[in-house]
C-alpha cells in the first residue's frame, strides 16, 4: 500500500466523538435492556447479575439513556446550527434519485447488474441507517420516558392501554434496533470483505481518495471535478 495516500477528511472530531458516544451508549442500553427482556434466559439472568442486579441494571440503563438523550439534544443543535452539521443533514436527506437508484442498487448487489449505481456523500443504505437510528432513538426515548415517569407517578395521565403499548414498543423496538445495527451496520463497517476488519474512518475521520471515488463518486466529483475518471472497468 502507498504510504502517502491522498485522503479527504470525512468526519470532523465532533462527529467522531458523537459517534463514539452514540455507539457506547447504544451498546450499553442494548445490553442492559435486552437482559431484562430476556430475563428468563440464563444469559439474561447472568447479565443482570453482572449489571448489579435488577436495580443496578435499571440505574445503568437510565444513565446511558440520559447520555443518549443528551447526545440527541446536542446532535439536534449540531445539525441545526453548525455549518458542518447543517451541510451533513442536507446530504442525508432522502432525494428522488436515491429511490431511483434503489432497484438498480439491489440488482447490483445481487449481481444482476454490473454497474454500481453512483452515490453521493451518503449512499441510500447509509441514509437508511442514519434515519433508522434517528427514528429508533426517538421512539425509544419517548417510550422510555413514559415508562420511567410511570414509576414516578407523573405519567398516570397516560391511559393504561397506552402504557401496555409503550412497554411492547420499547422492548420490540430495542430488539429491532439491535438487529439492524448488528446485521446491517456492523456488517457494513466491519465484516464486509473489502472492509474487514474495520473501516477506520470512525477513528481517523479520513477517507482515502480511492475509496471516496469508488464508494462516493458523486462527492468525489464535487471535490476533484469530473476530469479524472478512475473507473478501472
Amino acid at each position, binding site marked *: 500500500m502507498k504510504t502517502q495516500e491522498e485522503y479527504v477528511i470525512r468526519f470532523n472530531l465532533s462527529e467522531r466523538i458523537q459517534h463514539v458516544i452514540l455507539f457506547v451508549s447504544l451498546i450499553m442500553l442494548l445490553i442492559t435492556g435486552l437482559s431484562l427482556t430476556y430475563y428468563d434466559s440464563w444469559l439474561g439472568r447472568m447479565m443482570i447479575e453482572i449489571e448489579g442486579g435488577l436495580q443496578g441494571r435499571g440505574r445503568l440503563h437510565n444513565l446511558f439513556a440520559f447520555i443518549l438523550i443528551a447526545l440527541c439534544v446536542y446532535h439536534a443543535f449540531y445539525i441545526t446550527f453548525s455549518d458542518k452539521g447543517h451541510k451533513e443533514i442536507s446530504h442525508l436527506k432522502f432525494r428522488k434519485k436515491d429511490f431511483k437508484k434503489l432497484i438498480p442498487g439491489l440488482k447490483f448487489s445481487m449481481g444482476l447488474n454490473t454497474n454500481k449505481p453512483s452515490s453521493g456523500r451518503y449512499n441510500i443504505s447509509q441514509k437508511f441507517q442514519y434515519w433508522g437510528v434517528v427514528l429508533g432513538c426517538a421512539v425509544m426515548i419517548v417510550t422510555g420516558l413514559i415508562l420511567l415517569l410511570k414509576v414516578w407517578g407523573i405519567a398516570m395521565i397516560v391511559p393504561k*392501554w397506552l402504557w401496555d403499548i409503550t412497554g411492547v414498543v420499547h422492548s420490540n423496538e430495542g430488539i*429491532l434496533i439491535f438487529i439492524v445495527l448488528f446485521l446491517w451496520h456492523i456488517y457494513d463497517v466491519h465484516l464486509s470483505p*473489502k472492509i474487514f476488519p474495520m473501516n477506520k474512518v470512525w477513528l481517523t475521520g479520513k477517507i482515502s481518495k480511492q475509496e471516496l471515488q469508488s464508494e462516493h463518486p458523486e462527492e468525489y466529483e464535487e471535490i476533484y471535478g469530473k476530469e479524472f475518471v478512475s473507473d478501472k472497468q
Partner: protein
Amino acid sequence: MKPGYKFLRNILFGLLVTGTVVFISLFAAGYVKLSAQNTEACFACHEDPDLTADRNGKKVSMYVNPAAYKKSVHSMAECVDCHTGYNPDELPHSKTPVKVDCKSCHQESLKGIEAGVHKQVNCYDCHTKHDVAPGKEIRVNQTQNCQKCHNTKGIQQYKTSIHAKKNVGCEGCHLGGHSSKKISKNEVAATCGKCHGSHEKNFNNSVHQTVLQSGNQNAPTCTDCHGSHQILTSKMTIESQSCLKCHLDEKLFPGEGRGSAKFVADYKTSVHASIEKGGKEAAGCSDCHGDHMIQDPNNPQASTIRAKMLETCGKCHQQEVEHFKKSQHGTELMKGNFKAPTCASCHGEHNIKSVVSSKEFTKLNQVELCLSCHVDQKLPHKNYKGEEVLISNYKDSYHYRALQEGKLNAATCSDCHGAHEMKKFDDPEAQIYKKNIAKTCGQSDCHTKQLGDYNGSIHEQSLLDKNNPDAPTCNTCHGNHQILKKDESESRIASSKGLVQLCSDCHNSVEMTEKYDLPTGRTESYLESFHGLAVRGGSKVAANCESCHGNHNIRPSTDSLSTISKKNLPETCGKCHPGAVTAFFNTPIHIVKPEEENPWMYWVTNFYIFMIIAVIGGMVLHNVVDFSKKFKKKK
C-alpha cells in the same frame, strides 16, 4: 320285836311331829314379827337424811328414801332380805359390810349378765339400790344410765350426735340390758347395718372390708370414718381428714407409686382441697372415690378407673364432661382406645390444679402437655389432604414465641382446638373445621380485625355460601401450626415472590381454574407485567397480588367494596402511583387476550414481530449476497 323298842319309836315320832309343828309355828311367828318389826325399825333410823356412818374413815350417807323404797319393786321385801348378816340391835349392824347378793333371788336373770361385759358391775349400779326399777323402766332411760359410768369424753359426745337426736340409745348398738356387749371391729359393720343396711351392703363390697376380713386390723370400718359415739350427720363433714388419717401414713402406705402416702399427699395441693365450698373441700376423697363401696383403683368397678372417670368427674364438671364426650378424645376413649386421654391424663390425679390460676395449665405448659402425646411420629397427625403434618413445629410459630416472650394472649393448643370440646378437623362442629377456622382465629381478643375483613370476601363467600371446599381460609395461606409473622423471612407471605406463588397455587392451577371457573392467565399476565418483572427480579416495592387485591378482604372487581373496583382503583394504585385517575383504567389490568382487551397493543406487537422477522430475513439475504459478491471481487 321288844315291846319297849316299839314304845320308844312311837315316842320319837311324836317328838318329831311335835318338834316340826313347833318349829314351823315358831318360824312363822318369828318371821312375821321380825319383818313387821325390822323394816319399820330400819326406817326409824334410816329415813333420817342426816344419818351417816363411818366407813374406813369416810362419812357415808345411810339415808334411804322411804317413799322411793315403797314405790320400788322391792317394797314387798324386807330390808333384811337383801341386807343379810346384820344385827339390828347392834351399832354398827355388822363389823364388816356385807355385800347385797341379788343372785339369791334373781338367779335366772343374772345368768346372762355373768357372761357379758357387765359381770363385774354391781346390779345396783344400774338398777339403783333402794328405788330399784324394773327392767322395763330402766330401758326407757338406759342411755342415761349407761353414761353414769361410761362418762369418758368420747362417749359423752354422744349427746350431740345424730343418734342422740334421733333417739337411738346405747342399746341400739350395744344391745343393752343384761346382754350389753362390746362391739369388735369386725362386728361394727354388721351392727351399723342393722339400720344402715344398704350402706353395710356397699361396705361389704368395698376394698376396706376385703382388707379388714383378710385380717388387717388397720383397715377401716364404719366407726373409723364416722366416729363411734360422736356420729354427726349422715354426710361426712370430716371426710378428707378421715381418709387422710390413714392414707397419709407412710408406714401404712409406703413407697412413691400410685396408692402410696406420697401420692395421696398431692391432694392437699390440689384445687379440690384448696377451694372450700360450704366449709368443706370443693371435692373430698369420697366425691371421686365413692364412699362405702370404695374400690381398689385397679378394680374395674372403681369409680376412678378410665372407663368411669367421666361419670365420676361429671358429677361436678357436667358441662366439661359433656363437651369431652363429644370430642375426639372422648369418642376414642369410649371406643376403648387405650391411648386416648381421660380427665386425669391432662389434669392429673390427686394434684389437680386450677386451669386458671396454676402454673400447670399456663399456656406454655399446655403445649408440653399436648405435645407429650402429639409429638411427631408418636401420634401421627394428618391434615385434610391426608398428609402427615408436623405438630411440634408449633414451637417455631410466632404464637409460641410470643407466649415465651410473655404475651399471654397468644394462642396455644386449646385456643384453636378447644380444650374439652377438641374435635377433628372433619367434624363440622370442630373449631378447626374448615368453615369454622376463620371464626376461631377471629375470636375475641385475637384476630378480630382480620376476621372482619375476611367476612364478605370472595374467599369466605365461596367457602361458606358456595360450599367450595378448596376456597382458602386463614390456614391456607398462613399455615397451621407453624404460623409465622408476615415479616419473618421464612413465612410464605413474607416475600412478593412467595406470595405470588401462594396465590398461584390455586389461581394458576388448571384443576382449580376449571373446577371453579376462575379467571385464567392471572399469574402469567402478572409475571409478564412490569410489576411481575420487578418482583421476579427480587423487588420489594413492586406490586404483588396483595398490593392491589388486598389480603383478607379480597373481593371481585364488581363488588363496590373491592380494592379493585373501578371506583377504588385510583386509591389502590395511588398507594404507589399518586395521582392515578380513573381514566387510566379503561382496559383490564391483567392482559390475557390482547386482541380483545387492547387491540392496539395486539397490532403493535404483531407489527414488531413482522418487522423483526422481515429485517432479519432481509439483512441476512443482503449480507450473504453482498458478501459473496465482494468476496469474489476481492479475489
